[in-house]
């Protein structure tokens, strides 16, 4: 052991992010002050990022079980039953703070990290989605972050051959200083290939494979990932982590082949906190100990200290446990995939994490102290008495005509077409993308396409899954996926806003004919030690749990990103929801656009729109309301049920859920997606409103609420929905532009006008 004179002090512990009380606890566990390696490891594992100190108690309230759940929270990713012996693994993760420092690499390594979580449990990644938040695009910094992040996601996802099939982006000033970069990935695995991360079998060998270890992101997890970004963040900048998708593509193939050959006891990716967290968590999950010799770790830079090796966040690395007899075979396979494997340790029965540097013991800690004994904190929630978020300056006059409102909304950054973003992503590689962005409300991915496995040179054509889209006429089951969260609505009302985000995902799934299998979430919030943020978090998690219970879409995994705030205040609370569903036959996957002139257009659902916290209110510069109207979750659910059922039997030509910008924007989007127009009469609807004044009519046109859908199809198909929910026929698909009759507030716009307004984001990506 290192001599006492070189032991770090309390000051060092504080600098690493531990509190004085936590440091005392560490000393207690260690029987004295920890040395440098030990302190580094404790400080990482006891960070908010790894220990969920402020969120774990809340997370325990979430529903995590259900008939489709195969693997719930606790593993690298959750998994649900996808049918036919396959499971779908999925998870969303954030890379907010690294991306604020270096958006390209931050976003790229965010994608790399979430993909590793998917293949760490044995699933082949089949899709990525991104969820992004920036300040208003009028700010140069926001545009820089947007371009960098999108480039980084494109770089990593495109290069590794996983399609990016969907996502979302919002521009709001509370994200100006603290952007959010969340990435979600899905994978497919034969059920028997699923693997857990728990180490087992004392005497088994711990093998590190993939990239060599450098000084990447040292201090990242505790300093970079969980502290508020101050003005002095230049000093806190550790070496930026650089992603190498080419290395990861080999790591992925190697990992899956190791599992296919049954060579591994367990597998784990190296993410935040590198070897420290991977090894300790593997040991903890398996109730064993692990000895690691850092002198065996292949280094990219000479002279790295043991603690640096233990905390390095170099990308594209994996850790596995292997029975001694299998080690040569494992190392040989690593060589074949050019990912270099090295035995760096052994599983022990000591239940201690021991770090050696050659013969010298440089760290020795009880696994349970490292992983389980970090204190958990209670939140002290209290709603702020004064508004926390300033209204956005008005850009639209309150007496603007309905037509001007519509065009302003269509061209506003939160509503305009995302084409300039998603055109930078390969959405079709792997040949299973049945619905790409802007074709439908959710992405749809065929399951049965025989490409689950990448076949290899030895002619194993490895068609593990089903029969393929061609040839036979059987159904082609598919997955649908959606990611969503309107942070402004959550800011107005964390409980109802979060319910709305969950409902929105399920509505998106319903529009393509899919029913939810499970949910993932990324809780992006400010500093939980502040009462108002604690209140937001508590209320949001309450809404999340209730909504997922009501929809029977349990939470199978997720992530928490706290301290997203700067001196200018916290971000909008942003519980990003990702939901995966299944549909029996991809051939009936819904589209959003109008399909044929002459078809009937109907408004479906008990839609009760409100301008509170709506996009229109934002453009008008209105402050956030005190709360949102109550949501009738059961009614929304029955509307989803009706739309889903009709879509599955081919009873509808199109379905689109009404979201930002309300009915008029949803109609415009259906026109644009189908290249057709619409003749819509809302007079009858307005007649339902007693004494409808101008604001009431605007509410009908542009108000927002969960549970409303625009559907189109032949009259009988549309009316059939009425057995389960409310259906109001409002018009007919036409060849001309959009025309909405609503007394004095009638409006018309040509398709060209709609297209131009909707294309407003193009100027953010100049050539």
């Amino acid at each position, binding site marked *: 052991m290192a001599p006492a004179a070189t032991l770090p002090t309390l000051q060092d512990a504080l600098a690493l992010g531990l509190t004085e009380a936590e440091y005392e606890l560490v000393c207690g566990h260690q029987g004295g002050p920890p040395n440098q390696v030990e302190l580094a490891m404790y400080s990482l594992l006891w960070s908010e990022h790894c220990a969920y100190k402020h969120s774990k108690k809340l997370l325990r309230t979430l529903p995590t079980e259900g008939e489709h759940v195969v693997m719930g929270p606790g593993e690298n990713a959750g998994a649900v039953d996808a049918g036919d012996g396959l499971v779908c693994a999925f998870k969303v993760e954030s890379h907010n703070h690294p991306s604020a420092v270096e958006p390209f690499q931050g976003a790229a390594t965010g994608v790399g990290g979430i993909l590793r979580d998917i293949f760490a449990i044995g699933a082949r990644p089949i899709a990525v989605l991104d969820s992004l938040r920036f300040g208003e695009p009028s700010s140069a910094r926001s545009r820089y972050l947007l371009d960098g992040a999108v480039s980084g996601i494109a770089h990593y996802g495109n290069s590794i*051959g996983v399609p990016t099939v969907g996502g979302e982006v919002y521009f709001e000033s509370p994200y100006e200083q603290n952007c959010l970069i969340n990435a979600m990935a899905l994978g497919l695995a034969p059920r028997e290939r699923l693997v857990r991360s728990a180490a087992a079998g004392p005497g088994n060998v711990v093998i590190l494979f993939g990239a060599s270890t450098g000084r990447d992101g040292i201090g990242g997890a505790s300093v970079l990932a969980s502290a508020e970004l101050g003005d002095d963040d230049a000093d806190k900048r550790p070496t930026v982590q650089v992603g190498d998708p080419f290395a990861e593509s080999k790591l992925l193939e190697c990992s899956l082949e190791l599992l296919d050959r049954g060579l591994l006891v367990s597998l784990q990716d190296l993410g935040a906190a590198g070897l420290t967290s991977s090894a300790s968590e593997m040991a903890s999950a398996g109730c064993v100990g692990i000895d690691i010799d850092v002198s065996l770790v292949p280094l990219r830079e000479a002279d790295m200290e043991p603690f640096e090796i233990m905390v390095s966040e170099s990308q594209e690395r994996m850790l596995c446990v292997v029975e001694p007899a299998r080690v040569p075979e494992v190392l040989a396979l690593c060589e074949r995939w050019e990912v270099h494997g090295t035995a760096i340790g052994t599983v022990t029965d000591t239940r201690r994490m021991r770090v050696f540097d050659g013969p010298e013991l440089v760290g020795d800690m009880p696994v349970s102290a490292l992983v389980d004994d970090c204190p958990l904190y209670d939140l002290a929630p209290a709603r702020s008495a004064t508004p926390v978020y300033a209204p956005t300056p008005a850009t639209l006059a309150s007496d603007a005509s309905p037509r001007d409102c519509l065009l302003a909304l269509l061209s506003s950054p939160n509503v305009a077409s995302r084409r300039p973003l998603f055109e*930078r992503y390969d959405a079709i590689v792997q040949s299973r993308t049945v619905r790409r962005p802007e074709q439908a409300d959710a992405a749809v991915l065929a399951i049965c396409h025989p490409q689950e496995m990448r076949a290899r040179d030895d002619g194993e054509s490895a068609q593990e899954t089903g029969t393929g889209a061609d040839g036979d006429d059987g159904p082609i089951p598919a997955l649908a996926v959606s990611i969503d969260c309107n942070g402004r609505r959550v800011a107005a009302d964390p409980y109802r806003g979060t319910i709305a985000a969950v409902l929105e995902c399920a509505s998106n799934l319903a529009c393509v004919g899919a029913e939810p299998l499970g949910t993932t979430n990324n809780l992006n919030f400010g500093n939980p030690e502040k009462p108002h943020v604690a209140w937001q978090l508590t209320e949001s998690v309450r809404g999340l749990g209730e909504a997922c219970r009501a929809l029977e879409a349990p939470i199978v995994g997720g992530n928490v990103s706290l301290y997203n705030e700067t001196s200018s205040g916290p971000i909008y609370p942003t519980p990003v929801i990702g939901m995966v569903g299944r549909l029996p036959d991809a051939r009936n996957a819904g589209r959003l656009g109008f399909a044929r002139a002459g078809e009937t257009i109907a408004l479906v659902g008990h839609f009760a729109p409100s301008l509170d916290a709506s996009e229109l209110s934002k453009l008008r510069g209105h402050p956030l309301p005190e709360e949102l109207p109550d949501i009738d979750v059961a009614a929304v659910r029955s509307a989803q049920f009706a739309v889903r059922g009709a879509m599955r039997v081919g009873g509808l030509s199109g379905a689109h859920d009404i979201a930002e910008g309300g009915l008029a924007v949803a109609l415009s989007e259906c026109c644009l997606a189908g290249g057709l127009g619409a003749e819509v009469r809302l007079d009858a609807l307005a007649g339902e409103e007693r004494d409808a004044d101008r604001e009431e009519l605007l509410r009908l046109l542009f108000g927002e609420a969960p549970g409303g859908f625009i559907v189109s199809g032949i009259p009988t198909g549309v009316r059939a929905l009425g057995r389960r929910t409310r259906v109001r026929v409002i018009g007919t698909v036409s060849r001309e532009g959009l025309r909405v009759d609503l007394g004095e507030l009638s409006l018309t716009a040509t398709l060209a006008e709609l297209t131009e307004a909707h294309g407003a984001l193009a100027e953010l990506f100049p050539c």
Partner: protein
Amino acid sequence: MRFGVLQFPGSCDEVDALQAARRVADAELIWHGDRDLKGADAIVVPGGFSYGDYLRAGAIARFAPAMESVIEFAREGGPVLGICNGFQVLCEAHLLPGALLPNRNLRFTFRQVQLEVRSSGGTFTRECALGERLSIPAKHAWGRYHADEQTLAAMDDGGQIVLRYAPGENFNGSLQDIAGVSNEAGNVFGLMPHPEHAVDELIGGSTDGLKIFNSIKLTVEAA
């Protein structure tokens, strides 16, 4: 009739190409490190990011052992189709004239593009009519076709400019809207758009890409 589809580290669309080829004939993957083309009657060099696209797209892959065999195969008249990264590899290997440079817009761009068949009846376009439009997705960052004027003139005369982007579709800035070219002998063909992603109504909405795979099959079977 059997297709061989090369597989480099970093290839992404090789399984897609394999499955597309299997819609018309047999097909097998060929590992980059193998010299044995396993008796394939036609070779597909697929899309993706071979060797990470590092240095220059296609620059490293063209030296793979399997490519040596492909070069020989091509010299003997065997049909070779290069798609996207495969097109870049074939240019780097000098099996096709010209070079591919970063897109004019400097971005990876994914878009369904309309192509015009400018040379029909050959190995790869037997199934297409002159002037016919094909709807095929393109997705790449290095797709700007370049060759010097003399070469371009000779290619034009020799019917080597097989596909052009339809008016308004050339997002990468290729000279003369060139989307796909063949060698003088007509047995090597490269294009930036991805015909293997236009083989299934359900998945791409277009099946125009099948015409290229079918053309190869018919050519091989006629020989």
